[in-house]
């Protein structure tokens, strides 16, 4: 066991392309970082942004979102809807203090096992470099803070 920080990453894949890419990587015995826990959705368009926020809120350090290449969606254009939501979600996460580097969008077809594995490796290193997010462990502000460090005399 090394002391290296091992990020927890939740990966959302679609049933038709990116999950099969992961499958492909597995059957071809490609090695890639074990940090990503994959969750299979029927389509990347099924990815409610709530899932991403819940992952972060419950302690994930990064979220990987993956779907069919643009134009290849099994449900015609739902991956475009995910693309639009993804762009808006990144802006929201930035305001909440979550670095945009903690979330990644990867297009992967069923044949692209190697690309998928490679992207996961790159993403895990990217999140590792950022360090833990610790959202799940935060007390979310239940502890008291002093209003101001230095006292000032109130003139009469």
């Amino acid at each position: 066991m090394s002391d290296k920080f091992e990020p927890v990453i939740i990966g959302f894949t679609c049933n038709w392309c990116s999950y099969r890419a992961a499958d492909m990587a597995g059957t071809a015995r490609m090695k890639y970082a074990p940090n990503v826990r994959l969750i299979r959705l029927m389509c990347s368009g099924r990815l409610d942004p709530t899932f991403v926020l819940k992952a972060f809120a419950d302690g994930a350090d990064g979220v990987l979102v993956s779907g069919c290449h643009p134009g290849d969606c099994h449900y015609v254009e739902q991956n475009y809807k995910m693309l639009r939501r993804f762009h808006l979600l990144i802006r929201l996460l930035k305001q909440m203090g979550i670095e945009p580097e903690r979330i990644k969008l990867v297009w992967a077809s069923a044949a692209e096992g190697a690309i998928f594995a490679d992207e996961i490796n790159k993403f895990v290193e990217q999140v590792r470099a950022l360090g833990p997010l610790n959202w799940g462990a935060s007390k979310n502000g239940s502890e008291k803070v002093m209003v101001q460090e230095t006292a000032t005399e109130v003139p009469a």
Partner: protein
Amino acid sequence: MTTNGKPKFAMYWAASCGGCEISVLNTNEKILDVDANFDVVFWPVAMDAKYKDVEAMEDKSILLTLFNGGIRNDENEHIAKLLRQKSQILVAFGSCASEGCVPALANLSNVKEIVDTAYTTISTDNPNGIRPQPNYTVPEGELHIPTLYPTLRTLDQVVDVDYYMPGCPPESQQISAVLDLVIQVIQGKAQLPPKGAVIGAGVSTVCDECKRKRNEKSIKEFKRIQEIMLDPEICILEQGVICSGPATRSGCGALCPTAGAPCIGCYGPAENTLDYGSRLLSAVASVIDSNDPKEIDKILDGIPDPAGMFYRFNLAGSLLKASKPAWDK
């Protein structure tokens, strides 16, 4: 303390604006029913009462407490815990107590930024840079003012809550209906809803109550309300102005869209919505009329403040609750 046999009623405001109280008074003659059926024991806005009077009451001696406002400082928390202890039914009344409301937008900043904004910005006349001190000694003794917490929390993040009543403020007719129900329960003519229920609101969305015409939505440009003459008949979101109707709980009768303004989401998340902001974000982003990442980004520039837009009433009650700089030391 009167002992006239009537059930006791309390109402308290924590971090809130006082609009909830005004909404209660807006029930007009219904307020007389409150007086006829309840012994009002504690209501700082309407009558004089001291915290020590409440502290002296027996546990569970107040039948109904309407608690509005979020938990921003230690005084809020103390009274929330006290009223929980003394009340049989504790209602998170209004948006602040239920989900944080506008005061919770301060959860995007840390306490230092909040205090600096309040005490040093250009609109403040404070040449000596005076800051509030939690403790201060004067010849007469020690003075205390409430200490701020890093973030604002909802009532149910601090104490157990029996019912939630959404709205900023709750509509007066909804308050009347709830008061009627409680009075009927006292008289043995009705039963209370199950614990944890949202009362005084619908189960659907504002869109469901909105009379505007809806077509296929596809948005090339987001506009602010001052930049457009809204068509009075057509769905507001369709016209490029963000309307919170798709994610917001019904109960207001779609007041704002009917009056020509977009819904701003004050009735909180619709039934079974885990996170209001992401639900609304999802609805808004998916109707953008572009498949090109660059163009999508350009269109999204029309939403300059997504967190403020999508969590205007809901940040403290959302999944993330506060921005990282607010809670991270």
